[in-house]
């Protein structure tokens, strides 16, 4: 894997490799999911700024996530994961069995408190309003300490195009509609794309897709127009907790390493970086993540590899097969001069 390998392996300067001279440093996103609050401001800001059409108001019925996954008209996607996770207590081994409470302990306690003050001990439940104790002016959980925490936890993560160092979509695009910008990002030119759909199958993350009514492929541009005017992308601008951080990729990687060390020190040993490593199957992502569980839990592939890695090997096999076909076609005529 040499430095000048354009198809696979570490590559320090993708923009320069694509022919840009005198270009700005490579930029990217670092999405720190440990501080994501699931507000979806990034999804909204992205739609607004890029004038992305509405893509159906669906209630998916699985969580607060009704976007589902990235697509032609969803360039940011906030994933909501609901987990029961043992907090250092012994696992009773009942996790998979159809027994146990119908709700979390916390909910049960709130309801139990309300039942005590209810008139007929809750016998009239469902026939009259029950005061569950809120709204209140305190922060949720402010009155309780760590001892009141339950096994339940939320994981929220704002997914986006990874702007890979070796981008499968870009490699397979037959029209040149997809290109590497001077910032090292990957962008589709809508006036060139003819909707062949190859990029959709070329992406190992399932990011880019074809818009059915429009026929062209669309994905995150990292707000190419804003970058050219020296502004940060709309999603990063809108993020209220700085879960989405934008900047030169080198700086972001340093910052991510520090944040990871900090979390590990605080005992959050499950924290891991995803897409940060320039030695991975796509040469490192331009948009990478800090996750609190394995990547597949958030809908990421655990070990993506750019299909172009095997380009030479695939053409060699095709070459052998093609030669065999030519030889066989000649041989069937040599064999039978008698007709």
């Amino acid at each position, binding site marked *: 894997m040499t430095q000048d390998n354009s198809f696979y392996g570490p590559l320090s300067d993708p923009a320069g490799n694509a022919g840009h001279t005198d270009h700005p440093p490579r930029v990217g996103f670092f999405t720190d999911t440990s501080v994501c609050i699931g507000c979806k401001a990034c999804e909204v800001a992205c739609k607004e700024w890029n004038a992305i059409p509405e893509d159906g108001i669906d209630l998916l019925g699985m969580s607060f996530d009704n976007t589902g996954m990235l697509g032609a008209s969803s360039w940011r996607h906030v994933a909501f994961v609901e987990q029961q996770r043992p907090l250092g207590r012994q696992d009773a081994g009942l996790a998979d069995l159809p027994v146990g409470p119908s709700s979390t302990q916390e909910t049960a306690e709130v309801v139990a408190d309300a039942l005590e003050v209810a008139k007929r001990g809750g016998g009239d439940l469902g026939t009259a309003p029950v005061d569950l104790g809120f709204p209140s002016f305190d922060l949720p959980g402010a009155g309780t300490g760590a001892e009141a925490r339950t096994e339940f936890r939320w994981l929220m993560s704002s997914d986006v195009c990874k702007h890979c160092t070796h981008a499968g979509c870009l490699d397979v695009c037959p029209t040149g509609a997809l290109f590497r910008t001077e910032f090292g990002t990957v962008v589709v030119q809508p006036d060139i794309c003819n909707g062949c759909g190859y990029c959709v199958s070329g992406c190992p993350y399932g990011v880019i897709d074809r818009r059915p009514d429009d026929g062209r492929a669309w994905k995150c541009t990292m707000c190419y127009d804003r970058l050219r005017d020296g502004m940060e992308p709309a999603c990063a601008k809108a993020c209220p907790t700085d879960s989405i951080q934008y900047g030169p990729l080198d700086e972001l990687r340093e910052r991510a390493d520090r944040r990871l060390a900090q979390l590990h020190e605080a005992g959050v040993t499950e924290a891991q970086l995803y897409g940060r490593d320039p030695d991975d199957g796509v040469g490192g992502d331009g948009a990478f993540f800090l996750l609190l569980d394995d990547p597949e839990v958030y809908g990421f592939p655990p070990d993506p590899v750019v299909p172009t890695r095997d380009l030479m090997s695939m053409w060699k096999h095709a070459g052998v*097969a093609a030669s065999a076909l030519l030889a066989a076609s000649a041989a*069937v005529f040599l064999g039978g001069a008698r007709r």
Partner: protein
Amino acid sequence: MSREGAGRHGRGGRDDDGSRERSMVPKATFRSYYGRPVLKPPVWEWKVPAYLFTGGLSAGSALLAAGADLTRRPELARAGRIGGFGALLVSTYLLVADLGRPERFHHMLRVAKPSSPMSMGTWILVAYGPGSALAAAAELLPAGVRASLPGRLLRMAARPAGLSAALLAPGLASYTAVLLSQTAVPAWHDARRELPFVFTGSAAASGAGLGMLLAPVAEAGPARRLGVVGAAAELVASRLVDRRPGLVTEAYTTGRPHRLRQASEYLTLGGALTALTLARRSRAAAAAGGLALLAGSVLQRFGTFEAGVVSTKDPAYVVKPQRERLAARAEGGG
């Protein structure tokens, strides 16, 4: 498939989330985001597998036609040239119609991009087309024009034109395998070593099938032999795909892709056996055997295509092999 709710403890007990998917994959303890797919399914519909067939048919026919022309088998050459060009016309229609913006098909000609098999294929078709068209035009000349000067020139050009098409035909027959393999689609990418042989074998069998169908028995000897060789290559390579170790192979060996490919196997085998035996004497048997080879090739392409689609829709095909790869690497790395 495993839902996140099943958590880490998964012994497979809660893997059934009531989804309508057939359980083609053994119960597994992999995790996913609510069982949703990781990859996007291909946006290509029936037109692309249909093109895989017509492109292969055109290539196989062009090869047979060139050989027939050189060895003075006029009926076989005529069938191959006209059939090959007809299949090319259908291919062109299918390729353009499958685009999201068909009126922009010529944007394919903006670049020649070695990293994109679709770009390479475009240029193979551009180079292949004129030879195929000229050779077919010479066969289709009305009797009145044949003796005229343009007619004689065209007939003189037919042999070199047919040979140029035949030289490019193996590229046309095999590049489609790379086209499918250079994707993140697990079933296609994993079969990247076998697919070129499946596809060239299938192309030879279909071209030979057309020759057996259209040419008289006396001239169709090479078509019968090519049919047997192509069918053998297709059957062996296709069995090798089915025997690949790992979960992804199940995309080929279960469900609808399996049924399509099994039917393809029977038809191709039947066609090849006919070519070896009855087709040497009976025109009717030759036609039946030729049709069987053609149908076997069609079903092979659709089966392979659908195996790929299936493998993108189930996150197990993405997550499990990648998890195993990471585990093996961690073990190997100490």
